[in-house]
């Protein structure tokens, strides 16, 4: 495989990994605070739809982005109220939210646009367009570095860069700020936080809202950057892959980047079966590549690659001890 093909593959990886990364970090905030979220899928889908719909209607992708975040926040609020206020079963709530999004997006899309449950194609300013970083063109011919800069690093849409910057930001928030300390504490032992005079409910809602914003970014990216419009079920299981990546990364920010890049790479590979044939000498079925992230997650969970210990108070509603 030559450098150019490799770069194209990696370029594809980055583009495919971005929604995974955003959703994964979203889940990170929520689960570290003790709220399990298997509704990442639904939130992404809802955001994808509303961002595309509003972007099309207003002609402005940034307004669309805001709308998408709004949709995701709404679902986050439902999950928060069910899990925190009403101390309900968080897994069931997540499942419900996924269905809700899957159903509502099509119903509303059909009613709004009448195109069988999709939005019209997005174009121009209603989409995120590739950004050419400075000097990309002039550096293009420099050996090795030039193509890397031109192909791989430059030329992505805004959300890709934002996603990558969110990783160190997340790390900093979690480990160097008071908010992060409290957030991590509330997922391990909420009673410790409560008796220290900090609101458990407040922290958890904050985490859930952050999750909503990031899922909003992930979903909007799908419909306005990766593709050009919303189609039914377009999230295609990415929310679950992001969850798998989160477990794979053992709930830490930088490994989240690694895990989502790995899964993005697998997705990119699945689009280029000819490459595998050429490099490895035999063909790997696409279905196997599709299934690989899930298989890998099961392997991780089985503890074959070290123990994956979730936040101790995860999934449990907090009830004051009498």
């Amino acid at each position: 495989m030559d450098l150019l093909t490799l770069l194209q593959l990696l370029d594809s990886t980055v583009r495919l990994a971005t929604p995974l990364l955003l959703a994964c970090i979203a889940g990170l905030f929520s689960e570290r605070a003790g709220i399990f979220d298997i509704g990442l899928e639904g939130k992404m889908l809802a955001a994808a739809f509303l961002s595309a719909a509003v972007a099309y209607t207003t002609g402005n992708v940034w307004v669309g982005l805001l709308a998408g975040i709004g949709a995701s926040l709404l679902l986050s609020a439902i999950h928060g109220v069910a899990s925190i206020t009403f101390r309900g079963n968080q897994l069931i709530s997540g499942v419900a939210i996924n269905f809700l999004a899957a159903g509502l997006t099509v119903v509303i899309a059909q009613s709004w646009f009448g195109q069988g449950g999709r939005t019209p194609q997005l174009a121009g300013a209603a989409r995120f367009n590739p950004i050419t970083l400075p000097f990309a063109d002039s550096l293009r011919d420099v050996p090795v570095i030039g193509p890397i800069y031109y192909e791989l690093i430059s030329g992505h849409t805004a959300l890709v860069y934002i996603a990558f910057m969110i990783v160190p930001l997340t790390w900093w928030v979690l480990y160097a700020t008071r908010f992060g300390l409290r957030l991590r504490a509330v997922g391990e032992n909420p009673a410790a936080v409560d008796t220290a005079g900090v609101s458990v409910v407040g922290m958890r809602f904050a985490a859930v809202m952050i999750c909503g914003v990031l899922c909003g970014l992930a979903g909007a990216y799908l419909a306005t950057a990766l593709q050009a419009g919303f189609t039914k079920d377009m999230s295609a299981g990415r929310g679950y892959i992001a969850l798998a990546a989160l477990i794979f990364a053992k709930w830490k920010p930088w490994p989240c980047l690694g895990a989502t890049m790995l899964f993005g790479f697998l997705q990119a590979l699945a689009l280029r079966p000819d490459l595998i044939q050429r490099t490895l000498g035999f063909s790997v079925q696409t279905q196997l590549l599709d299934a690989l992230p899930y298989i890998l997650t099961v392997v991780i969970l089985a503890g074959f690659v070290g123990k994956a210990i979730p936040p101790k108070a995860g999934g449990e509603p907090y009830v004051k001890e009498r």
Partner: protein
Amino acid sequence: MTAPAIELKDISKAFGPVQANKDINIRVMPGTIHGIIGENGAGKSTLMSILYGFYKADAGEIWISGKKVEIPDSQAAIAAGIGMVFQHFKLVETFTVLENIVLGAEDSGLLRPSLARARRELKALADEYELNVEPDALVQDIGVGMQQRVEILKALYRKADILILDEPTGVLTPAEADHLFRILENLRREGKTIILITHKLREIMEITDTVSVMRRGQMTATVKTAETSPQELAELMVGRKVLLQVDKKPSAPGAVILDVQNLNVTDAKGVHRLKGVSFQVRAGEILGIAGVAGNGQSELLEVLGGYEKARGIIFMNGEPIDLTGTKSDGQSRRARGIAHVPEDRQREGLIMDYAAWENTAFGYHHDAKYRSGPFMNNAAILKDTEEKMARFDVRPPDPKLAAKNFSGGNQQKIVLAREIERNPDLLLIGQPTRGVDIGAIEFIHQQIVALRDQGKAILLVSVELEEILSLSDRIAVMFDGHIMGLGPAESANQIGLGCLMAGMGGDDTRSMTGWDISDAAKIEAGTPSLADIEKNLAHAGTAEKV
């Protein structure tokens, strides 16, 4: 006249029909240690929860240093200078000691300066009060004694002037408890006010200046510790003269039923819990295992009950028990004639959501007389339950009522009836009267003695030394996974037992008890003085029935 550090006036709190606190009045002067003693359910925890802002009192006022305060939440309590050290620690195990102390009391949005300041203050506090901790150790890696010190430091870091400790010595070894008391004395010397909640009379006598007794939600008395005695306090706690003796004939032991040889247990975390334990129990005798909780007694019961793995040899009625199996041998134990009343009836002995009749079959659900064809014979089980309830005076005698709706004493009777009526050769019984009211306690003790008189072997485990002394024919003392000493109950006395429970072997103890003392464990600190020995009795349990 100085104002009291903390004063409660006519505090009342009800939960539905249950009056948890009624007209509580307490006054604690600064620089003193005030004890609050009472049985389980007397209302102590509710009171403390009100003080810490978890509950709002229905009526009454809280005054701190002569000023009325409102405490709607924990933040207000902290602001008022109240610090609470809970019975179950509120620590984040994956954080360091420093992070736990700083949590919620950070100076600013950024962590680094807060941690730095905390580190400095910690050093100062440690030097002043003997509160030694390792700031960078993870809480999950440090021992219980240090964890408790972290809890105390949390309160002090927040400038608490009033410290409330809820049953602090439950999880501590005697040495750690001593260290705690030294810390409390240091704090008192510096003018801090301490409220100590406990059900242990010895602790009250040892370290408090004043003590309040709570019973059934009300304060029955407040006295100066120096002017009272354990007997008087026990009476105030319970409401009548406490019956300590059980009527029993001398035992006539028969054949060896249970023969345990060199039993070793290592728990899931790799800690060696039972270290070569050997003993025998004969038909028609009660062997009482005394000791502070956590010295291997629970593991012993679990192994005998069939849900913990062990290495060693156990003979039951002369036949060996296979210890190499899985951790689910409860059924085979029962088949061998071993019945088990577990230490924790709510977590193990009963399914709280099952009805009483379903619980009667629990553990014996494969029994032929509970079956009819491939199905369970619910009618038969129901009838059996009715009869058991009548014989054991369970109230209310409703087999269909869920176990969680019975009182502690009646729950215990359901478990006891089930196990005793199996006519076992060996009855294992742990903490038989924990959380049980006085009337039921006497009944349960009588049942145990009656079983023994029928020629059964009984292994009794209890942290209440009085219970051990009054029921047992022979006594074994466990400490740190060893049997420190074993001998007849007649020649045992509290002081001798106390030594053994504190880990002391040696000639002095031998002469005190006249027993064969194991040399296997001598405390590293050397032979303690008599004063220390008496102190260790504090952790041996006391006369009151909890």
